[in-house]
């Protein structure tokens, strides 16, 4: 029993990390209707920037500079790509972000190098035991995972405040509802896009930081994006809570299936389990668990 909860808890904590990446997707999709396939590449790029900067600067300064770099990146993407593709079909924008993803991966590794870099956040590696009073011997958790969960929660809270309380946040929500209407009431689209892509960039930086600390900063971080996709579909493209809950569900399901189902079929199923799960969900709820239902009109 304790082992089961341990697996669940581990899954949930891993799920938080998926949620972090998915959150970046949702931010951009909600505000601009763009399915940003480059989110994973942004995570990689942010992590590389951060880790290489820490070689020169103290951590906080490196983090701050990385933030600026991500904002600059958002600006460039808006200038060079998005503004030329306004009013294009979603699928075209999607493919454009595929291009951005490839470019960023190549670019990041060209300037920052493509070795494996370790990022030390000063969190002890050895796991700790919690809930010893309930379970015999307690549950084993990774301190870093706990840290990630805390950071993610803080980030979500911050974003929620930003969207609910600030003027920019309100404008963003207007844009998410209706592009044209928002433009006609005087919300400049390019400005909005810059804000969301910057926000997504910072989310990517945080995700990159946590993932980097966990796995080391290397190319495979970009593939985290692929992990986050099923999360998105499960949660719906437009729902922030969906992204979080979806991430938790996927993380949990993945771990459980790996532990209980994996050995039967030969292991290594975490690569596809989430996908197959969402495929089944999609067949019944095409808009995901929390997505908006689309009514087709003639």
């Amino acid at each position, binding site marked *: 029993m304790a082992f089961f909860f341990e697996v669940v808890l581990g899954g949930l904590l891993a799920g938080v990390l998926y949620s972090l990446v998915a959150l970046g997707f949702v931010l951009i999709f909600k505000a601009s209707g763009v399915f940003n396939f480059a989110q994973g590449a942004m995570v990689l790029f942010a992590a590389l920037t951060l880790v290489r900067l820490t070689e020169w600067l103290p951590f906080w300064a490196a983090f701050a500079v990385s933030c600026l770099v991500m904002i600059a990146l958002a600006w460039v993407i808006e200038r060079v790509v998005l503004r030329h593709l306004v009013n294009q079909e979603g699928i075209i924008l999607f493919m454009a972000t595929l*291009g951005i993803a490839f470019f960023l991966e*190549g670019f990041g590794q060209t300037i920052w190098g493509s070795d494996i870099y370790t990022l030390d956040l000063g969190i002890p590696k050895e796991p700790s035991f919690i809930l010893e009073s309930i379970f015999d011997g307690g549950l084993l958790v990774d301190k870093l995972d706990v840290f990630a969960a805390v950071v993610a929660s803080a980030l979500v809270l911050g974003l929620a405040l930003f969207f609910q309380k600030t003027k920019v946040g309100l404008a963003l929500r207007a844009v998410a509802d209706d592009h044209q209407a928002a433009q006609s009431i005087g919300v400049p689209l390019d400005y909005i896009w810059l804000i969301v892509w910057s926000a997504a960039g910072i989310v990517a930086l945080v995700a990159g930081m946590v993932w980097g600390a966990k796995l080391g900063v290397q190319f495979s971080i970009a593939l985290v994006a692929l992990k986050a996709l099923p999360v998105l*579909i499960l949660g719906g493209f437009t729902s922030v809570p969906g992204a979080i809950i979806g991430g938790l569900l996927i993380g949990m399901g993945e771990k459980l299936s790996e532990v209980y189902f994996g050995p039967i079929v030969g292991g290594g199923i975490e690569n596809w389990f989430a*996908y*197959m799960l*969402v495929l089944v969900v999609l067949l019944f709820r095409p808009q995901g668990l929390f997505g908006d239902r689309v009514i087709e009109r003639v």
Partner: protein
Amino acid sequence: MFYRENGQFKTSYAADQAIFPILLDRIAIMAILLVAFLVVPLVATQYVYTGILIPFLILALATIGLNLLTGYCGQVSLGTGAFMAVGAYAAYNLVLRLPGMNLLVAFALAGGISALVGVLFGLPSLRIKGFYLAVATLAAQFFIDWVFIRIKWFTNYATNATAPELLLFGLPLDSAMRRYLVTLAIVVVMALIAKNLVRGATGRAWMAVRDMDIAAEIIGIRLLRTKLIAFAVSSFYCGVAGALWGFMHLGAWEPLTFDVNRSFQVLFMVIIGGVGSILGSFLGAAFIFAVPILINQVPAALGVPISTALSSHLEAMIFGAMIIFFLIVEPHGFARLWQLGKEKLRLWPLPH
């Protein structure tokens, strides 16, 4: 500029609907085929066959396959690599377990098996569209990757699958030239078939679904059936391409040959070459295939050798930039540029 079409009038629908209704185009395509079948074998070297022509042709075939699905039917797929893998392993197992099977039959059956798998993963297209579907096809990619890594039966309990000695109608395909000619013949025939499909009833149904699925349904097109046919045909092409990749190009391969990067590569070929164009599939394949070769060769030729890592990063950057460039400037790729150029040439010197 070169077109002289006066007097080329059509007296039958068959002539009017021919693939190349303009005389000059017919001459050009004949010339290209002549060069490919007769001149190339006279001049090409081993490297040209194995390093350029054979892989290019096979990738063009896979691109046609994906183009049928994405370009004509509007269903984006990121699972091309998986369907190629199915084809490759199916052909491997067929030849392994049914010795003496004709190679062409094995390829065709491999395509058929891939088509079945394609239909299976196409089922969600009934309910989901656009990038939702793209993500769903990733499921196929990862699942199938896993199958061929973990389920050892498929690889006959070896890490790599190795193609047997190739015999076609008793003729050993032991030289690169022979493999090239066989590959070329298969690709030409399948390209022709693809062209026939897209300009016939099936192709029109696909394009109707792509352009406006609601209207398509209202004129009596059954969406699921049409999409599944597209998945099946597309996967058939990818499957055959996969089998050719394994047998004709590599000889021995590991599952990673057909991973998600292969899917992206083929998708890029579609985008750059031209969404919804058979000709574009060749152009796109040629371009995407040529870039890495150039990145490797040009700096070396200029005396600034670059590392493998850097060249692969440069490659990614160039692909990414090209994709963005094309989507902004000409979302329909080389094929559209080609077509526009041709229209201009037909009207030249008049501008429109």
